[in-house]
């Protein structure tokens, strides 16, 4: 495990800087309504093809940062570069997975999954075929004609994931995607996410408030501290490759990392 204090910018960092960053966050601050300092001068970059988690207690600005990267919110100060280009709004190279799924209740699973493609002007036959493919990919084959209210929370989020995958964006922005699903489903989901990373060549930005989840799925964990939202630490968990989920949950490095993070976070929680 390697740890760096991001606040100490002059010190030699022990986490390597991304060599091929796809997203660069430069000096981003966000103030809500002139009073709430949700983010304070965030500098951060995200390596292409990696899964980076934003971790921190609730209210520390994780959602705000992710939505600024998505182009859904304007920063008060600073800028975001995606593939070297300044972000001014949402774009096809980024796809968002919502905490509350944000599915259209009047549309079937298939239509929901094809929504992004439809907005991009992809023809009907092609978009439905692609949507079908990704519905299968997230494990929902056979549910194409169902409606969201006929599905469990976990299945609904799979639809949200299929919709984001279908547009073939380079970056997947996921805001606590598993927080509204039950614990068993959540574990299965995390394992699926790891498998998905291996087949899909994408960069993931993953917001979570679960330490275990972050350590389990991430290449890198960016820890945020609240009021104002700042980066407190960056951690690269050194989990051995190819370890099975069951082995992992008993792995020494995994447990140490979780413990380490918990120690540094607990002062904000108490």
């Amino acid at each position: 495990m390697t740890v760096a204090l991001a606040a100490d910018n002059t010190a030699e960092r022990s986490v390597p800087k991304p060599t091929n960053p796809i997203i660069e966050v430069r000096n981003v601050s966000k103030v809500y309504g002139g009073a709430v300092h949700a983010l304070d001068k965030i500098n951060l970059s995200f390596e292409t093809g990696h899964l980076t988690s934003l971790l921190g207690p609730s209210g520390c600005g994780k959602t705000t940062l992710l939505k600024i990267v998505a182009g859904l919110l304007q920063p008060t100060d600073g800028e975001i570069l995606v593939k070297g280009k300044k972000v001014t709004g949402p774009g096809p190279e980024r796809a968002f997975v919502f905490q509350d799924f944000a599915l259209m209740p009047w549309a079937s699973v298939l239509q929901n999954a094809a929504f992004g493609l439809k907005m991009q002007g992809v023809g009907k036959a092609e978009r439905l075929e692609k949507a079908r493919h990704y519905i299968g990919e997230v494990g929902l084959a056979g549910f194409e004609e169902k409606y969201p209210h006929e599905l469990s929370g976990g299945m609904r989020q799979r639809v949200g994931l299929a919709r984001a995958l279908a547009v073939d964006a380079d970056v997947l922005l996921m805001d606590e995607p598993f927080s509204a699903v039950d614990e068993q489903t959540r574990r299965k989901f995390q394992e699926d996410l790891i498998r998905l990373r291996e087949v899909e060549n994408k960069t993931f930005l993953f917001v979570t408030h679960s330490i275990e989840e972050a350590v389990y799925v991430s290449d890198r964990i960016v820890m945020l501290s609240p009021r104002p939202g700042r980066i407190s630490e960056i951690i690269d968990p050194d989990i051995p490759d190819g370890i099975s989920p069951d082995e992992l949950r008993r792995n020494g490095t995994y447990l140490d990392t979780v413990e380490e993070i918990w120690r540094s976070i607990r002062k904000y929680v108490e």
Partner: protein
Amino acid sequence: MTLFGYRLPMMSSLIVWVILWEIIGRLELLLLFPPFSEVILALGDVLTSSSFAEAMRITAISYVAGLAIALVVGIALGFLMGLVPTADKMLNMWVNTFLSAPLSALVPVFMILFGLGTPTVIVTVFMFAVWIIALDTRAGVQNISPSLIEMSRSFGASRFERFKITLFAALPEILAGVRLGMIRGVKGVVIGQLLVSIIGVGALFSLYQQNFLMAHFWALVLLLFTLALTFAEIVARFEKRIEYYAGARS
């Protein structure tokens, strides 16, 4: 309903009232109440008369026209209020006032403005129906989950597509408003014609009253009640479907 331990069929209380009516009518106590049997006989007369057909035609035309305008204006107004806070601040008080105001009192004003004819009845239907449609649409638009709108933005939806999503997401509330508007519109079309009184059912009522055709008068009342109740029943069926849809939303 049960009586002395016997289950009585649904309509039996109605039969009691009908018998009572028949007895009072036979006693010839009140000129106003002919026996029920006479009313039933008059029913055939009324139904086959050409003035009844004409009255129904005018009623249908005024109702459909007034409701159609109320739908367009009400939904547009609801969207405006739901989406633009300034418009909401300016309009909300007035819409609420009109919603609970005794609109019948305004019909004489409409008569001055629109004359003694169908236009006044159309305006009355419109005024009865439009406010509840506007308010329910407003509520629907304001209750849309913000993340659905963010979702559409993040996938690059055009303005038109975003509007479509807003419309669909608010549809259960809009349809609930439409249902209430339809029922209020029935009141509007009857009250409007009664007050204008020279066209449609209003003209028929005055005709029967002035000629002391009380059996015909009551026959027409029965007909209107039956029509209005049947209509409300149809609308209620339609509401059940909306409720299913709204329940399926979350």
